[in-house]
C-alpha cells in the first residue's frame, strides 16, 4: 500500500527546471532510496514533500487525500519528518529540551513540563539503544548522535514518513551500524523511510527499493534485488551529450604545474600535472574536496604535505598573493561571497587585484585604470551599460565574466575555474567555454572544477576524479565515459582502473553542503 504518491510534480526556478513531471510512489514500511548526480533534483524533491517548496504543478497524494502542495504544517500533521544533512538544532540546550521543542501536543501557553519530558526522553533514547544522556548539551554530541536525536525527535512527533538526507556523510562505520539498526527497527514499526545517499554500496545493505533521478526527471524505480551497482550507475548518468563545446587545440608538452602528494584542507595525497594550454577537469561529488584542493593549490588554505611546482620551480607559497605573483589565478566557486565585490563598480572590480601596476607611486592612474577595465570588458564581452555600473546590477553570467576579467588582468599563466558555469544561463555558458578555450589557445593552462558531467567531459583533456578527499582516478580523454567518472566519484570499488575501496569512513565536518 502506498503511503505517499507524487504525481507529475514540476518545479522550476529561474533558468532551471529542478523537477520535470516527476511521479513516484512510496510504500508503507519500506526503505526507499533516491539517487542521482549533483543537480538531479533530489533536494528539491525532499523540499516538495516536506512543504518547504511549492511545486508549480502536479499533485501529492497522502492518506487518500490529494494536495496541490504540502505546507510545513500539513507535513507535520501527516507525520512527515526530515533529518537534514545540516542539522538545525539548539546547541546550547540539552538533548531533552531539543527533543521536546515544538513537539508539544498541547496548545496555547503552558509551562514546560521538564520532569515529564526528561522521563519520556530517557525512554525514547533507550529505544534507540544509544548512550546519550538527556541532560547532555547538544553541542557535546557527535554528529551521529545528533542525528539520532533528530530521528528520535521525528519518532516523538509520530512520524510515519522519515526522510534522511545523506545520513552517513559524516559518521563512522560503527555509528553507521547503529544507524542502520535503528532504521530497520523503525521500518519494522511501519515507518516509511526515504533515504538519500551518494554512497551506492550502502543502498544494497539497507534499502528495499531505489528510485533514480536525472536532470530533474524520474528515470526508474527498481527493487534492490533486481539490479547491481553497474546498472545503477548507468541509470544515473545514462544520457547523451547534448551541448556543443568549442573546438580546442591540443595542449602543448611543457609542464606548467606539477602537484605531488599534496595534502591538507581535507584532501590527501593528490598528484597531477598540468601542461601548457591544457584544460584539466576535476570531478567528484559534493564534499569530495575539489574546491578544497583548489584552495590548497592557490595557497588559500594550509598545506600539510606535498609540493607544488610551477615550470619545475618549487613554490612554497603561503598566501593567494604569493600564488598570484607566481602566476596562478583563482576564479572562485561562490561568485557573490568569494569572487567579486558586488557593491562596487565593474571597473573597480576588474582592477582591484592589479592596482599597484596601474599606479604612479601610490596614486591610481585613472586613465590606465579605465583602459585596463575597458580592455577586459571587451575581451570578456561583459555586457554592462558602463564601467561604473555596480556589479550587483549585472546578470550572473556577466558577474562571472567580471570575476574572470579580474583574474586575467593580473595575467596569470595558470587559471583555476571553480564551477565556472554554476547558475549561469545556457547562452552565457557558451561564452565562458569560448573564453576558456581561447585562453588555452593563448598558452594559459586551466584547472576546472565542475559538477556538470557534460561540461567536464566536453571541455577537459584529462579528468582527475576525487572521492572523499582522495584521488580515485585520472582519466585520459580516450577513457572518458560518464559511467566511469561516476563510479570513481562514488568510490565504487569495482570501477575499472580503480583499486581503492571505499571504506565507508569520512572525515567529519566535510561535505556538508548540497
Amino acid at each position, binding site marked *: 500500500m502506498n503511503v505517499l504518491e507524487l504525481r507529475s510534480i514540476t518545479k522550476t526556478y529561474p533558468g532551471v527546471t529542478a523537477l520535470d513531471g516527476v511521479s513516484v510512489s512510496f510504500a508503507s514500511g519500506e526503505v526507499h532510496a533516491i539517487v542521482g548526480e549533483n543537480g538531479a533534483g533530489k533536494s528539491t524533491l525532499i523540499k516538495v514533500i516536506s512543504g518547504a517548496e511549492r511545486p508549480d504543478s502536479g499533485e501529492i497524494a497522502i492518506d487518500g487525500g490529494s494536495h496541490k502542495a504540502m505546507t510545513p504544517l500539513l507535513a507535520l500533521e501527516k507525520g512527515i519528518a526530515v533529518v537534514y544533512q545540516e542539522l538545525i538544532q539548539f546547541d546550547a540546550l540539552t538533548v531533552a529540551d531539543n527533543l521536546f521543542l515544538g513537539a508539544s501536543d498541547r496548545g496555547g501557553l503552558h509551562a514546560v513540563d521538564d520532569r515529564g519530558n526528561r522521563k519520556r526522553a530517557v525512554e525514547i533514547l533507550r529505544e534507540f539503544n544509544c548512550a546519550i544522556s538527556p541532560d547532555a548539551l547538544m553541542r557535546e554530541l557527535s554528529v551521529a548522535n545528533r542525528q539520532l536525536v533528530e530521528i528520535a525527535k521525528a519518532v516523538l512527533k509520530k512520524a510515519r514518513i522519515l526522510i534522511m538526507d545523506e545520513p552517513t556523510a559524516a559518521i563512522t562505520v560503527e555509528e553507521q551500524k547503529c544507524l542502520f539498526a535503528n532504521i530497520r527497527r523503525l521500518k519494522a514499526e511501519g515507518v516509511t523511510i526515504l533515504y538519500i545517499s551518494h554512497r551506492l554500496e550502502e543502498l544494497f545493505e539497507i534499502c528495499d527499493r531505489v528510485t533514480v533521478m536525472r536532470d530533474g526527471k524520474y528515470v526508474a524505480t527498481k527493487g534492490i534485488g533486481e539490479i547491481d551497482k553497474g546498472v545503477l550507475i548507468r541509470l544515473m548518468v545514462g544520457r547523451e551529450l547534448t551541448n556543443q563545446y568549442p573546438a580546442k587545440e591540443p595542449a602543448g608538452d611543457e609542464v606548467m604545474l606539477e602537484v605531488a602528494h599534496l595534502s591538507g584542507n581535507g584532501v590527501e595525497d593528490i598528484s597531477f600535472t598540468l601542461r601548457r594550454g591544457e584544460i584539466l577537469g576535476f570531478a567528484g561529488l559534493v564534499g569530495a574536496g575539489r574546491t578544497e584542493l583548489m584552495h590548497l593549490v592557490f595557497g588559500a588554505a594550509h598545506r600539510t604535505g606535498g609540493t607544488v611546482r610551477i615550470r619545475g620551480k618549487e613554490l612554497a607559497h603561503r598566501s593567494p598573493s604569493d600564488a598570484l605573483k607566481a602566476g596562478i589565478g583563482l576564479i572562485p566557486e561562490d561568485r557573490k561571497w568569494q569572487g567579486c565585490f558586488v557593491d562596487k563598480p565593474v571597473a573597480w572590480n576588474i582592477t582591484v587585484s592589479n592596482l599597484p601596476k596601474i599606479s604612479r607611486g*601610490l596614486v591610481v592612474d585613472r586613465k590606465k585604470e579605465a583602459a585596463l577595465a575597458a580592455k577586459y570588458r571587451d575581451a570578456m564581452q561583459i555586457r554592462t551599460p558602463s564601467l561604473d555600473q555596480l556589479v550587483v546590477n549585472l546578470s550572473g553570467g556577466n558577474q562571472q565574466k567580471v570575476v574572470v576579467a579580474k583574474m586575467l588582468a593580473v595575467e596569470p599563466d595558470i587559471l583555476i575555474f571553480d564551477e565556472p558555469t554554476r547558475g549561469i544561463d545556457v547562452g552565457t555558458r557558451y561564452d565562458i567555454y569560448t573564453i576558456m578555450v581561447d585562453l588555452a589557445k593563448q598558452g594559459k593552462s586551466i584547472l576546472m572544477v565542475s559538477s556538470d558531467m557534460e561540461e567536464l567531459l566536453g571541455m577537459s583533456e584529462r579528468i582527475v576524479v576525487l572521492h572523499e578527499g582522495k584521488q580515485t582516478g585520472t582519466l585520459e580523454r580516450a577513457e572518458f565515459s560518464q559511467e566511469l567518472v561516476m563510479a570513481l566519484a562514488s568510490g565504487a570499488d569495482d570501477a575499472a582502473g580503480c583499486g581503492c575501496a571505499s571504506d565507508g569512513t569520512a572525515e567529519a565536518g566535510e561535505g556538508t553542503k548540497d
Partner: protein
Amino acid sequence: MKKTNWTVWVSNLSLPILLIASVVTFALLNDKFLTQINLTNILVQNMHITVLSTAVLILMIIGGIDLSIGFQISVVAVLIARTIKEGILPIWAAIVLGILVCMVLALFNGAMSRILKSHTMIVSLGTMAVFQGLSFLLSQSKTYGGLPKEYQYIAQYRIGGWLPTSAVITLVLVLVVGWFLKRTYLGRHLYAVGDNPEAARLAGLNVWRIKYLAYLIAGALVGVTAVLLSSRTGSADSGMGPDLTFTGITACVLAGVALKGGEGTLWKVVVAVFVLGVLANGMQLVGLGTYPQYIAKGAIMLGSLYLSNRSQKAA
C-alpha cells in the same frame, strides 16, 4: 529611472541640506549665531571631533568599530602633558612620542582581533578597559593643567588674527586622508578588504597587512585628536576622551558609513560632524536645554537612516 536618481540625489545631499537648514533656522532664531566669533567657535569646537571621526571612518571602512579610541585619547593626552610638564621631553618630541604610542595602541587592537579571531568591537571592549587603567595609572587621577603657551598655540593660535590653527591642521589632514582613500591604491585596498575580506584574500590582497595599515593611520589620527584636544583645553586628564568615542561613531553613522564595512565617504562624515556641532551650538544659543538636544540628535539619526535605506533600496 529618473525617480531612482532623484532618491539617490536626495540621500546623497541630505546632510548638506540638513546643515544649511539648521544654519538658517538658528540664524533666524538668534542674531548672534551668524557672527564671526560664533562661526569661529563652531569651527574650533569641532576640529578635534572631525579628526577623530576621520579615524573612526577608516576603521569602519575595514569593517571594524573601535570603542577604545576615547581612552586612547586619554592615554596619549596625559602622556604628552605629563612629559611636557615634567620636562622630560621638548614639546615637539612629546607630541611625536604621543602619536607613536597611539599608533601602537591602535595596532594592538588590530593584532588582538586577529589573534583572538573576534570582532574588533568586542576586542575593543577589552582593550578599552586596559587603556582606561593605563591612562589612570599615567595620570594618577590628576588633571595636568597649565600646559605651556607654545603647546596651546597648536590648536588655539589664530593665523592673521582669525584663522584657527586647529582648523588648518584639520583641513590638511582631511584633504590628505581624502586623497589617500579616493586616489591611492592603498585606499582602494581598504575598501576592498572591508567590503568582502574573503574575496579580497582570494583576489591576492594581503588582508591583514592592509588592515594593520588602517589601524596605524587611524591611530595616528587619534593621536592628533588627543593633541588638538589637550592643546585646546590647555590641560589633560583621564576623563577627557571617552565621551568623544560615541560622538565620532555617531557622526560616521549619520554620514551613512556602513557598519559592515567597505563603504563610507569622508566629506559626508565631515558634514555630519558639523551638523551635530551646529546643532549643539545653535540649540545652546537659542536657549534650548540639553535634553531637547538629545531628542533632536536622535531624530536626525533616525531620519538619516530612513533616507539612506531608501537609497539602498532604490540602487
